[in-house]
C-alpha cells in the first residue's frame, strides 16, 4: 500500500487487488479500486468552490465507494496494480471577474495572482494515460466576446485580484497564475473581466505543495480597445520557489500575440 503524501494528491499509486484508495481533493472525493480484471473509479463533488480539504490516497473500505455519484469500470486483465493520477489544466480559457472593480493606471505595471480550477486525469500504461478526465470543481460556462454571436466559450471564475502572494489561500484543486499587467496606453484600464488562456499553460508545484501555472503577461497598448499582447513565460513561475513541472499544457496551439483579453470600462 502506498504511504500517503499529505502535500501531493498526484503521482503513481500502487493498489493491490481487492483494495481501494480514496482521495479528498477540495470539493471532489475520488475512489479507485483495483478489482479482479478491472479498475473501478468513482467520484462525487460538492458545490463548494473554496473547499480546501486535502486527504490524498487514504485507505478505505470497498463499500465506501457507494457514496460516489458516478462510478466507472475499466477492464484490465493484466497484473498491473499501479495507477497514475495527475492534475490537468482546464480545456478552455478562464474568464476571471474581479470581486471588486480593479483599475490599472496608465503607464503602470502590476502583478495579479488569479487561480483556475483543475481537472484530474487517471490512467496507467495498460489502460491509457487519460481514462478519466474530470473537473475537480465544475466551473460555469460563460461567453467571452464583444457580442453574443462573436467570441468564444470559456469557463467563469471570480477573482479577488490579489496583488500579494501571501494573501493567496492554499487550495489543492486550483492552480495559481501570476499575471503581469502592463498598461502602456495613456488611459486607465478599468478591469471588468480578464481572460486567461489556461489551456495553454503547463502546471508546476512549489515546495509548499501549491500548484502553479506558467506565468502570463499582458501588455495593453491602445487606449480604446480590449486587446493586449499576450505572452506565456516559458519555464517555472518566478514567484514559486523551487517549482517543478508536473503536467503539460492541454493545448500546444500557439496563443495569438494580440488577442481580446479584457472587458473593460474606459474612463
Amino acid at each position, binding site marked *: 500500500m502506498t504511504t500517503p503524501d499529505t502535500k501531493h494528491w498526484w503521482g503513481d499509486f500502487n493498489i493491490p487487488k481487492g483494495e481501494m484508495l480514496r482521495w479528498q481533493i477540495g470539493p471532489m472525493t475520488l475512489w479507485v479500486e483495483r478489482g479482479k480484471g478491472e479498475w473501478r473509479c468513482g467520484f462525487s463533488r460538492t*458545490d463548494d468552490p473554496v473547499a480546501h480539504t486535502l486527504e490524498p490516497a487514504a485507505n478505505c473500505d470497498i463499500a465506501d465507494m457507494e457514496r460516489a455519484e458516478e462510478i466507472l469500470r475499466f477492464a484490465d486483465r493484466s497484473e498491473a496494480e499501479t495507477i497514475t493520477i495527475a492534475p490537468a489544466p482546464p480545456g478552455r480559457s478562464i*474568464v476571471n*471577474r474581479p470581486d471588486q472593480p480593479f483599475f490599472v493606471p496608465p503607464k503602470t505595471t502590476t502583478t495579479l495572482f488569479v487561480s483556475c480550477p483543475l481537472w484530474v486525469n487517471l490512467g496507467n500504461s495498460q489502460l491509457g494515460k487519460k481514462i478519466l478526465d474530470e473537473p475537480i470543481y*465544475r*466551473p*460555469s*460556462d*460563460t*461567453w*467571452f466576446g464583444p457580442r*453574443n*454571436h462573436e467570441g468564444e*466559450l470559456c469557463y*467563469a471564475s471570480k477573482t479577488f485580484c490579489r496583488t500579494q502572494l501571501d494573501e493567496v489561500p492554499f487550495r489543492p484543486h486550483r492552480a495559481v497564475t501570476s499575471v503581469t499587467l502592463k498598461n502602456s496606453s495613456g488611459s486607465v484600464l478599468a478591469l471588468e*473581466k480578464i481572460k486567461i488562456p489556461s489551456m495553454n499553460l503547463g502546471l508546476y508545484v512549489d515546495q509548499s505543495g501549491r500548484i502553479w501555472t506558467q506565468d502570463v503577461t499582458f501588455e495593453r497598448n491602445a487606449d480604446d480597445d480590449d486587446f493586449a499582447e499576450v505572452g506565456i513565460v516559458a519555464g517555472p513561475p518566478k514567484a514559486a520557489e523551487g517549482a517543478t513541472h508536473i503536467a503539460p499544457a492541454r493545448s500546444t496551439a500557439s496563443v495569438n500575440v494580440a488577442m481580446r483579453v479584457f472587458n473593460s470600462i474606459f474612463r
Partner: protein
Amino acid sequence: MTDLLDNIVNWLTTQGATAAAAVAVLIGGLLAAKLLADHLPVKRLHPQHQLITRRVVRYSATAIAIGWSLNILGIELGILLGAAGILTVAIGFAAQTSASNLISGLFIMAERPFRIDDVIRIEGITGTVVSVDLLSVRLRTFDHLLIRIPNETVLKSNVTNLTYFPIRRLDVKLGVAYKENVSRVRAVLFDLAHRNHLCLEEPEPLIIFKEFGDSSINLQFSVWSTRENFLNLQNSIHEEIKNAFDSEGIEIPFPHISIYAGSETAPIPVKIENNRVDTSPTATSEPPPL
C-alpha cells in the same frame, strides 16, 4: 445483312482509330472525373461544401470528356447544344415543379441558411439536416423519421436555424402569487442560475416583469446556454425553479374558479369537517339546486 456488316467493317477500317480514340477519351475522362472528385483536397471544408464541390468537379469533368469525345468523332457540339436547349425547354414545360425545385435548390445552396447537421424548423417540422440536394432538403426528426421537404417549399417558408449561433437563450415563463415579494423571487432565480453550471454567466440571466396577470404576477426568466446543452438546461432549470420555490415557500398560483349559482338560488353548500371538504349531496338537508 451482308451490306450492313460490310459497311461496319469498312467504317471500322477507315475510322477505327478515331472511334477507338473517342472511346478511350470518354472512358479515361469518366475515370479521371471520378478520381478527381474523390481525391479533391477539400477535407477541411464543411461536409456540405465537400459534397457540392465534388459534384461540380465531377459533372464538369464528365461534360468535358463527353464533349471532347464527340468532337473526335466529328460531331458538331453546336448542333447538339441547340438540340439540348430545345429539349430543356420541352422538359421544363413538362416538369415545372421539378425545375422550380431545382432552381430553388441552387438558391438555397448559394444562400446557405443552414448546413448539414444543423437543426432547423420549417413549417412546424424540427429536425437535423441530413442532406441538401438539388430537389429537396432531407430532415431527420428527433423521433427518428426522415422527412423530405421540396426546395421550393423551403425557399418560400420561414426557416429557423436552431443551431446557427453557438449560444442560445432559454425563456422560462412563470407566475408567482401576488403576495410574494418580487425582489426575493428575483434573488432566488439569480442564485439558481448561478448554481447551474450549464447556465452561462455571460450573457447574464435576465428577469423581465411581464404583466399583472389574472391569477399571478407573470415574469420571464431568461438564461443562456451553449446550443449543445440547451435541452439539458431546459430540463434542469424548470425542475430547479420548482424545487427552489417550494423550499423558499414561494407560491406558483394556478387559476381558481368560483362557482356562483345565481341570485335567485341558494349557494352551493360546502361543509368542511376535519380539514376535509365534503361536497356530497348528504352534506345538507336539501338537495343542491342545479
